[in-house]
């Protein structure tokens, strides 16, 4: 009995020692940060004293920015465009891409590497290259000028800027899920596939009726993450246009407020509002996911 007790206390001591630092880190860098973030939403600088005061002004300002001004509404519209493009174009194409890599299309190892390349190379570098290529003196700019006699200011015109960033994000983002989806597809039992093929199942039925359901837990997790970052959907706006030419998104707007203006309170309130809207949506998607295929862990 005594031996068992000392063994148990040694176990608990081990757990406490191992978890002390990570839990402290979590409390400081996640918990305190998020509690403060909620408190910031209800604060504003007092112009008289220079200190802070409690107020609902930030939410009034948010309401005005949504209804009267175009600042937040425009950013929200752009965010939804990025989100929809990712959900309806990015994810399906990404899945198809992984499926054919899984089916070992000729040169699949090479393609797997190349398609994943944009995910391992700094966006800062990729955007520099992309900007140069589409600039007036870059290959695409020169080509278009030779064909049409016109110069297309892709990043300096509101008509094109957002579309350009969106095109870049989609083109470079298709391969982003390769690691997770390829990992899941590699777990599909080959005997099931072979049995189905003997029964005359074709390529697309195999994908839709066998591989997709078997990889649904991974795909649904990716889907869930897409919805979790619903209001964070964005392209590399900072690198392309710094929010000019109507390219602001919600996440960029918050970053811009902190980075350029050192504004802390109003962006916290805007973030809080979108957190409150986004949370039930994310939880709803999780619920729907688990209804389709029940949770399997534990």
């Amino acid at each position, binding site marked *: 009995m005594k031996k068992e007790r000392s063994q148990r206390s040694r176990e608990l001591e081990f757990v406490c020692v*191992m*978890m002390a630092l*990570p839990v402290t*880190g979590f409390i400081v*860098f*996640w918990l*305190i*940060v*998020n509690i403060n*973030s909620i408190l*910031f*939403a209800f604060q504003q600088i007092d112009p008289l004293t220079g200190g802070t005061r409690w107020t609902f002004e930030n939410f009034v300002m948010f309401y005005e920015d949504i209804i009267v001004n175009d600042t937040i509404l425009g950013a929200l519209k752009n965010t939804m465009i990025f989100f929809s493009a990712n959900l309806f174009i990015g994810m399906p194409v990404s899945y198809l891409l992984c499926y054919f890599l899984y089916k070992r299309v000729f*040169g699949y190892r090479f*393609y*797997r590497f*190349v*398609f994943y390349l944009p995910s*391992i*190379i*700094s966006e800062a570098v990729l955007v*520099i*290259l992309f900007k*140069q*290529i589409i600039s007036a*003196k*870059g290959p695409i700019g020169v080509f278009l000028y030779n064909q049409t006699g016109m110069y297309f200011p892709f990043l300096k015109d509101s008509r094109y800027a957002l579309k350009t960033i969106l095109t870049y994000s989609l*083109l470079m983002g298709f*391969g982003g899920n390769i690691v997770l989806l390829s*990992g*899941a597809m590699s777990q599909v039992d080959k005997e099931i596939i072979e049995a189905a*093929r*003997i029964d005359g199942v*074709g390529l697309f039925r195999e994908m839709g009726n066998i591989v997709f359901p078997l990889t649904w*837990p*991974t795909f649904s997790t*990716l889907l869930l993450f897409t919805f*979790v*970052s619903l209001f*964070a959907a964005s392209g590399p706006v*900072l*690198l392309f246009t710094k929010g000019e030419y109507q390219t602001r998104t919600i996440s960029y707007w*918050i970053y811009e*407020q902190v*980075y350029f203006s*050192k504004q*802390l309170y109003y*962006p*916290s309130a*805007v*973030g809080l509002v*979108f*957190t409150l809207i986004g949370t039930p949506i*994310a939880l709803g998607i*999780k619920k729907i*996911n688990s209804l389709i*295929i029940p*949770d*399997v*862990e*534990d």
Partner: protein
Amino acid sequence: MKKTLGEKIIFAIVSIIFLVYALVILYPFFFAIMSSLKENGRAYINDSVSLPWPMYFGNYVKAFKELEVSNNNFFQMVFNTIWYAGGCTVLEILSSSAIAYCVCRYKFKLRNFFYGLSVFIMIIPIYGALPSSYRLFSILGLIDSRFYIVSAINGFGFSFLILYAYYKGVSWNYAEAAFIDGASHYSVFFKIMQPMAMPSVTAIAIMSFVGLWNDYSAPLLFMPNLPTLASGLVLYEKETQYMANQPIYFAGAIISIIPVVTIFIVFQNTIMQNVYAGGLKG
């Protein structure tokens, strides 16, 4: 299993699409390499499309000497990047590994709470925490400090879930045998379980390292005077505007991607085989 004619046609079409898409991805790098070998000055400004001749390989040496941002030369930016990406990765993986192992293998009161917490963090979208983080880091003196990497000590999240799944699948027999032989909990974790978890840990560590190596937004905001290669390139473009020596700039960009591409080439099979999300419970 033999392919039908229809499938052969589909695969042929897919091969063509893949080839075109691969060229779209690779072309910018080809363009960057070609541009990095050109001579700076009018010849480059007036003609960025043609192939370089003669080739100025010296631009790569010049990149190390001449690319300077916020009083940091290229070597300092390389060091900043290794410090930031390496330091954060080590701290993040050690934290996740410790928590995942304890939550998975030991029974204690808060065990289920910690698992639930990790899932909660993953699925609750929090959008406005950046201002609060900035304030906290300012108060803690972490802005523009090398100690900024301590913010990576947070064992919950994606890495936790992957490692939790791994520890769950590992046989506990080895640990029990070691305990019978008198091994301590620390020995079992560091000498038995951790080496066994190495493929998963390596895969997650590499993904984390690559992500941090490429991250420009956090270093721009929190370490403006200690630029990494990614944030340095952004700052260099901002500081030089139209005066930038473009070939050297491209040479710097190419040099900055070599380490991550090399790491990925070496470890791609480890990554592909060890990371996959099997759904979230909670």
